[in-house]
């Protein structure tokens, strides 16, 4: 009995940290979302006005759409590429450690640096990408990548994928390391080809790594704002304006702290809902393997 009480006692410091640094700020944001607070001065109660404004304006739905599109493209491509590199490196132990470090390096770089470098690559005036296309005789593919609404979002997702493919790859490689050598050996003895071993042995056993990668990438990308902010500022004409960028603009461009809080509450609800169902589906899938 005494031991049981001690266990609860030991959780108190962690609970205090959680309440002070996680629950209290969330409570404060909810409270602020019903006010017209401007960062200083008195916060006047405005009821549901902020939420009414969000749901009666297309621009916030558009921003949510941009966030979902960004997330879908990045999560899909980044994980497929990460899985591809992990599967290849798993079969090439001689270069595995070096390649893993090399692939992982971009994810340690600052978003600001990456954003400016890629902005230069995409520049419509002598940018690297257009120059390469010209050298290859593919002038018809040249375009102002970040200035065209039909390509701007894809251009930013490419930079994001470049940054974090190594991160996904590292998680998949950890998953590969957990696959028993006996299973691989059994596959070989049964005459399974490399592709068959990947498809029918490794891929199902990588289910936990797939869950982690997809959930982490989804959370990270649904709330992204750094690269769109640096590379396009949300433009052209809102084509790359994510919901987080909208929050940022309301906070520091317009000093609408109350309204920005209501936007962040909406974003949190969306992310929690998406991740909850995604996690449930992926866990169920893991159990069925």
């Amino acid at each position, binding site marked *: 009995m005494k031991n049981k009480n001690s266990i609860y006692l030991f959780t108190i410091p962690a609970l205090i940290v959680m309440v002070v640094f996680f629950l209290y700020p969330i409570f404060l944001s909810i409270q602020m979302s019903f006010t017209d607070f*401007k*960062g*200083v*001065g*008195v916060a006047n109660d405005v009821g549901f006005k902020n939420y009414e*404004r969000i749901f009666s*304006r297309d621009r916030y739905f558009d921003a949510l759409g941009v966030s979902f599109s960004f997330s879908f493209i990045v999560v899909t491509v980044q994980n497929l590429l990460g899985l591809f590199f992990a599967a290849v490196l798993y079969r090439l132990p001689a270069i595995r450690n070096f390649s893993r470090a090399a692939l992982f390096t971009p994810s340690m770089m600052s978003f600001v640096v990456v954003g*400016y470098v890629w*902005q230069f690559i995409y*520049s*419509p*005036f002598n940018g690297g990408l257009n120059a390469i296309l010209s050298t290859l005789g593919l002038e018809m593919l040249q375009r*102002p990548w*970040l*200035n*065209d*609404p039909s390509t*701007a979002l894809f251009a930013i997702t490419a930079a994001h994928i470049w940054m974090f493919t190594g991160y996904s790859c590292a998680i998949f490689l950890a998953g590969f390391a957990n696959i028993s050598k006996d299973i691989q050996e059994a596959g070989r003895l049964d005459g399974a080809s490399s592709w068959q071993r990947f498809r029918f042995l490794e891929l199902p056993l990588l289910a936990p790594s797939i869950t982690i990668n997809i959930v982490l990438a989804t959370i990270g990308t649904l709330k992204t704002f750094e690269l769109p902010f640096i590379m*396009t*500022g*949300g*433009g*052209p*004409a*809102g*084509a790359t304006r994510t919901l987080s960028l909208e929050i940022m*603009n309301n906070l*520091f*461009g*317009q*000093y609408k702290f109350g309204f920005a809080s209501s936007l962040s509450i909406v974003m949190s609800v969306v992310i929690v809902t998406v991740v909850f169902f995604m996690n449930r589906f992926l866990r169920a899938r893991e159990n069925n393997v």
Partner: protein
Amino acid sequence: MRKSSLVSLAVSLAFGANLAMADTVTLDVTAWKGNKAEPAAMPELLEKFHSENPDIKVEFSYISRGDTDVVIPPRLQGGSNPPDVMMVDMPLVKTWGEAGMLADLGTDSPWFSQITPQVRDSLAPTGEVFVQPLEIVGLGNFVNLDLLAKAGVEQPPKTIDQLIDACKKLDAAGISPMLFSSELSGSMIIAANGIYGSEVMPWDLGSGEASFSDDEGFKKSFAMTQALIDAKCFEPKLQAGLDPWGTSLTEFSSGNVAMLPQGAWNIGSFDKQENLNYVFTALPGGAETGIALDTFGMGWAISSSTKHKEAAQRFLAFFADQENLGEFLKADSGYNPYVGGPSGLPELAQGYDEARSAGNIVMWPVFMNHWPATMNQGLNDGVAMFLLNSSDGPEEVLEYWDEAVEDSM
């Protein structure tokens, strides 16, 4: 005896020093000018202030404009540790002033009546003055004279017809005529011409009392922009997402483009560019001289809860002195906010000066609080929308701006 005298002397000196310390007021001043990148003569001016005011010690903190939004509000809100004097711009004056965080400097201040009328009208909309202006920033047209000469254009264009003519000649000579990024450059020309041609005051548009959709000035301004597109002044789709803070400046300073509408603050960096023969003129538009698009750069505000109000007022008075202000403006390439005061702009800005002298001035409405902050983003988005689908006309953009104004209410 000798020993006791020495002790007495030491005690007296220490006591005296303490008394002197007690009489010295430490003034906490924050600003986004005065670092290595933008010194604005601040070190020299602070040294001069200290020599003239030995009883005041200025503790100067450089805080970038972006960080000012984050760092200062908690200090103001707490009330116990606010800076005594802060550098502010008009959006900050509105937010902090309305929240009661800034002291009323009074319309009876000796410098207030000397402010140029265009600025003065915007400073005290409710009768209270929260800022002492330091600098007016000119937004105009940078023109590469060598490229113009190559195309056979003799003078920098002042009117739209001259601009169209110059564009045609430059385009025929294989020279990129101008950049028109939706953010800043394009917004500047469209807003300046829209306001100049409008029959209502800009604050009526910003308050919703008048509508952009019905405004003939803005309709004409978009028609003028379409004429520029037709004259191949720029490729509209290329400008919609062009970065005005990086790519545009690099292109102009590298001599790849003939004209760039931008802010006068770039004069310092363009001057360092070798072989860049350029001038800074007013924005081509409806007026014969072109339109000088002025905006409030920055000023000083005093915290309403400062404990050193008298010292803070002396600090402000120092910067209201034309000799001191002139030094600041010269180092920062800024215009003087006071009637008849010395300008900090060099000779190459003569074209812009002419438009100002002729009274063809439009105040940049967002930074003067004539338009709400929501219009800052709205303006850029609207211009980008037009550049992407200019053949659709400006109706959708004008409605979008009316909605942006409504969003601020």
